[in-house]
């Protein structure tokens, strides 16, 4: 709803706005939908002038149509696939996180969603040398854990610090600050966050359901509307700035007893790819096993319900022993 104000377009002066308001035409939509001939008579203004104003307002406020060929060219040159750092996850995601899309990771408590997010952030910032925006709504992110993961990648403290600097963290605990943060990122914050030469390539929200699920349920519509607003701003940010959006979600049980991602049916259409994380049940239960299984439950590129198992400690494994070509690091003497 865009309210008519004078100066919006040439020919729309104060008197005309007042006359239009008297004729119950208050917004741009009203001008565009009404009968111009009748309106010109009622407001005693020339038909031609009003027609020109309508045309300019329409051009200013509508979305511009793009040809499919141009859109495809643009997509080819700007879409990137970001590896998550874990080959099993990459296989599930068809080589990694695609920019321009929202990928969702859902799982119960302790299933490893946050650890996967940390691992992805560290991988993108250290290996791919790109910036990451990490929005933490649960308070589970600590810099020392990120440092621990980086120390497994390299023992050079300068490189570790550089990589840590490329991860920008926001701590928010309610939906309104989340929306504020996302809107400000979309309108310029993303460019400012690009530091150390790399542009922002990923926005991770852990977790999006922690701020939305308290608002759902009951007869209020506000919660649903806020959820759709978050989805909208994440999608436009992903598309316009070519970033990959990764969000985490909790799980609930469906009517027939199976585990399904939370936030309901309205949210289920939002992410392009959805993965369900679960603990792996083994015959001899080792209580602190770090093995998890990931199931692909929605994808436009792969057949659904394929499962992969992976180790949560993958991102913190020591890299020194694996590659013989790496030259021995000198110990830093401080």
């Amino acid at each position, binding site marked *: *709803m*865009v309210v008519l104000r004078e100066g919006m377009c040439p020919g729309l002066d104060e008197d005309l706005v007042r006359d239009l308001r008297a004729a119950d035409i208050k*917004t*741009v*939509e009203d001008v*565009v*939908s009404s009968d*111009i*001939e009748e309106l010109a008579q009622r407001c005693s203004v020339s038909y031609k002038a009003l027609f020109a104003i309508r045309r300019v307002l*329409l*051009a200013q*406020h*509508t*979305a*511009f*149509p*793009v*040809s*499919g*060929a141009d*859109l*495809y060219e643009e*997509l080819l040159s700007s*879409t990137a696939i970001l590896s998550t750092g874990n080959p099993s996850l990459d296989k599930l995601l068809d080589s990694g996180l695609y920019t321009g899309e929202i990928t969702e990771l859902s799982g119960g408590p302790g299933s490893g969603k946050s650890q996967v997010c940390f691992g992805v952030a560290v991988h993108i910032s250290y290996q791919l040398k790109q910036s990451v925006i990490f929005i933490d709504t649960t308070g589970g992110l600590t810099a020392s854990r990120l440092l621990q993961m980086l120390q497994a990648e390299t023992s050079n403290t300068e490189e570790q610090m550089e990589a840590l600097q490329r991860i920008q963290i926001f701590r928010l605990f309610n939906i309104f600050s989340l929306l504020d943060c996302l809107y400000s990122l979309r309108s310029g914050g993303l460019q400012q966050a690009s530091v150390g030469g790399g542009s922002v390539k990923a926005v991770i929200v852990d977790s999006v359901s922690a701020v939305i699920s308290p608002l759902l349920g009951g007869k209020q*519509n*506000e919660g*649903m*509307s806020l*959820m*759709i*607003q978050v*989805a*909208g701003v994440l*999608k*436009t940010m*992903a*598309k316009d700035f070519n970033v990959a959006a990764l969000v985490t979600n909790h799980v609930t049980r*469906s*009517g*027939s007893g199976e585990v399904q991602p939370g936030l*309901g*049916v*309205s949210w*289920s*259409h*939002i992410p*392009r790819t959805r993965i369900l994380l679960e603990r792996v049940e083994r015959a001899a239960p080792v209580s602190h096993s770090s093995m998890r299984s990931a199931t692909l*439950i*929605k994808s*436009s*590129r792969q*057949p*659904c*319900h*394929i499962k992969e198992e992976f180790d949560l400690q993958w991102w913190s494994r020591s890299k020194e022993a694996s590659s013989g070509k790496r030259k021995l690091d000198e110990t830093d003497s401080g």
Partner: protein
Amino acid sequence: MTESGAQLFARLEARRSLKDVEPRLFPEDGGPDHGEVVELYGTEGTGKTELLYHLLCRCVLPVACGGLEVDVVFVDTDYSLDMLRLVSILDSRLNADEAALRSCLSRLLVVHCSSSSQLLLTLHFLETSLSSRPGLALLLIDSISAFYWLDRCEGGASVAKQEEKLSKCAVLLGRLLRDYRITVFATCHAIRRSWSGPSSSSSSSSSDYDRPYLCHPWQRLVTHRLLCSRQEAANNMAATAGGSKEQRRRQVFTVHCTSSSSSSSSSSSRTKTYRSSSFCVTDGGVEFI
């Protein structure tokens, strides 16, 4: 509003009818004709997007490759247009011909809308495109339900205010359908659950979610309703040991089509015809069973 002779001709000249766009989906000789609206309705993961891309490809492909060669406008309301998937489907039908792919894609016009006010303004804006391009026969809206919750919250307590914006869009669409004789395909996500009492365990997904919930002006426009659902995945454990990727994609989707066409004699009685079909999704698109 006066229009020149050229504009009148462009408006009334027969745009390509899409009656034969997919005979396997619609009842006998009941495909979407001029001025008709097809609504693809279903929950997440029921193949609506794949079906939409299948119909879209059929429309933009050249006649030599089995298409209808018409211009299409794609109104994307929830930023879900997967261009790479669309191109892979086109590629598999065109046998990797670069120039033909480019010409197919240039028949497609994409518009992104972020609110129902913007949708209304965009539809007004598209009217000029419609009058200047007589080859434009199809308007695709994905999805028409994207702003449902936003409108409901903005409208406050009054249901009329909540539905006002979508009603205006529907009324405008009705006028465009009548004046320009185009066809409209729209997807609608099923997000309102109709409580049908104690549901049986197996059919918990589809039967609860098939009640229309959008405003009445839109529901009056819809002539063909395709209810999409997903069948329970058959257990093909036996074949998967050495089976190919094609065998694994055996997730079968069903479509129930309800077409209501007003009989020629009296406009009050609307006859309904039904048809059910199934398909599965492969790398090259939808394959009917």
